[in-house]
């Protein structure tokens, strides 16, 4: 018995044992999907949040439009638009040599999730930067710091601490919504579970999947709380 069949054997569930390996490799795909999208999304969001606040007027309007649009439409719809919709222009993608990207459901899911989470993270970071008191900017200015230096050494470190909790929530939300990747034929944890159910008609497999998701979310929530406590240990009020 390989290790991935063990949990199923332990709880005495035949389905969970039979599909354990598929489900755990699905879990791996879920992890990759979430990790790549959240990290890429964060990198994009930092740029967009700064643009939104300090960029030229037209860029501010553009970023605002982007976040409003992608926060105002369902992720499922965005995913279908990218996977099916952009896949429609196969000849064009083949011409520009990008067909390998839009052909793969995994890459499409990463793209959709990244675009989506970047929109949410931009708003989180914007809020965090905006709630830094003005005196911090003025203080930095009076010390002769350049705008970029102010942002990098004075504002961002404080804003990141404020953004920590909502960013943790965003990570958890992304793990949860990653389940819809299974609807574009991707065998993530949800996809593997759907397959197991379709073949066995044993509903308990969904409950085991729910338990795995729940454990994942709870572990992340607790670790994140610890990290936050550690990073804010210099602050008197906590």
């Amino acid at each position: 018995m390989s290790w991935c069949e063990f949990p199923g054997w332990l709880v005495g569930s035949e389905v969970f044992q039979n599909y354990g390996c598929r489900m755990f490799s699905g879990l791996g795909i879920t992890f990759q999907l979430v990790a790549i999208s959240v990290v890429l999304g964060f990198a994009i969001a930092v740029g967009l949040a700064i643009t939104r606040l300090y960029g030229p007027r037209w860029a501010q309007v553009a970023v605002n439009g982007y976040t409003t649009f992608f926060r105002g439409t369902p992720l499922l719809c965005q995913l279908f638009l990218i996977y099916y919709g952009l896949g429609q222009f196969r000849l064009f993608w083949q011409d520009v040599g990008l067909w390998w990207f839009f052909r793969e459901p995994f890459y499409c899911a990463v793209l959709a999730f990244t675009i989506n989470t970047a929109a949410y993270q931009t708003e989180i970071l914007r809020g965090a930067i905006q709630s830094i008191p003005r005196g911090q900017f003025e203080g930095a200015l009076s010390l002769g710091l350049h705008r970029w230096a102010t942002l990098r050494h004075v504002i961002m470190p404080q804003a990141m601490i404020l953004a920590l909790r909502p960013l943790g929530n965003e990570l958890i939300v992304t793990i949860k919504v990653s389940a819809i990747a299974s609807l574009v034929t991707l065998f993530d944890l949800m996809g593997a579970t759907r397959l197991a159910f379709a073949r066995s008609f044993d509903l308990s497999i969904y409950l085991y999947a729910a338990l795995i998701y729940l454990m994942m979310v709870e572990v992340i929530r607790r670790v994140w709380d610890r990290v936050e406590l550690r990073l804010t240990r210099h602050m008197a009020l906590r």
Partner: protein
Amino acid sequence: MLDKLALLGFGQGGWGLALLQGAFITISIALATLPFGLALGLIVALGKRSDSAILRWLSTVYTTVFRGVPELLTLYIIYFGIQILLQELWAKLGLPGNFSMPPFVAGMVALGVVLSAFSSEVWVGALNSIQKGQREAASALGLSKAQAFRLVVFPQLIRVALPGLGNNWMVLLKETSLVSVITLPDIMFITTRANVVTKEPFLFFGAAMLIYFAFSLISAWGLGRVEARTNRGFAAFGGATR
């Protein structure tokens, strides 16, 4: 290009009417879920603040579970789970034929349960913001516990909770897209079918995006209006309290 746009119209071979019906289903399920989810959320919130340790524990477990499990999974579990349970009950009662779960009800229950878990957090926050003195004063005036809640606490509660509940509504509106997987003919379901028939996914999913976006914009505008109205007595503090 124009002949493609005709696919969205109401003429021969146009999907306009079907899309409208889908939009109607989306709005219906969101509106049907809302009161159910919010009321259940308030009950859970009261459970979290109750004196009984068991109730507190139960409500915490409830919110942890339904906030932690993906909505899609909750939807499947409720759709198939209730179906199987009721089917067994159906057979036990010796009723003829088969019981089949209406997807609308399954979707409503699943989305409502998730909404209640998330909205209970908002309710708890709002309940905490209302000082004990309000309840004490109400009881000093001879109001019963239920009366005090209905006449004194609730009107203040709703004002504080509104921004958070408005957020919950926006999330719910987008989550309704998931019910298409249990064959409820909402916008996503219709556009998916239109895609199968016409092979024009970009056009149809793009149209679906715009419909959802319009709903979101209208909701945001409406919520802003309602919030401004509930805050009208608080203009001195700078208008809307966040």
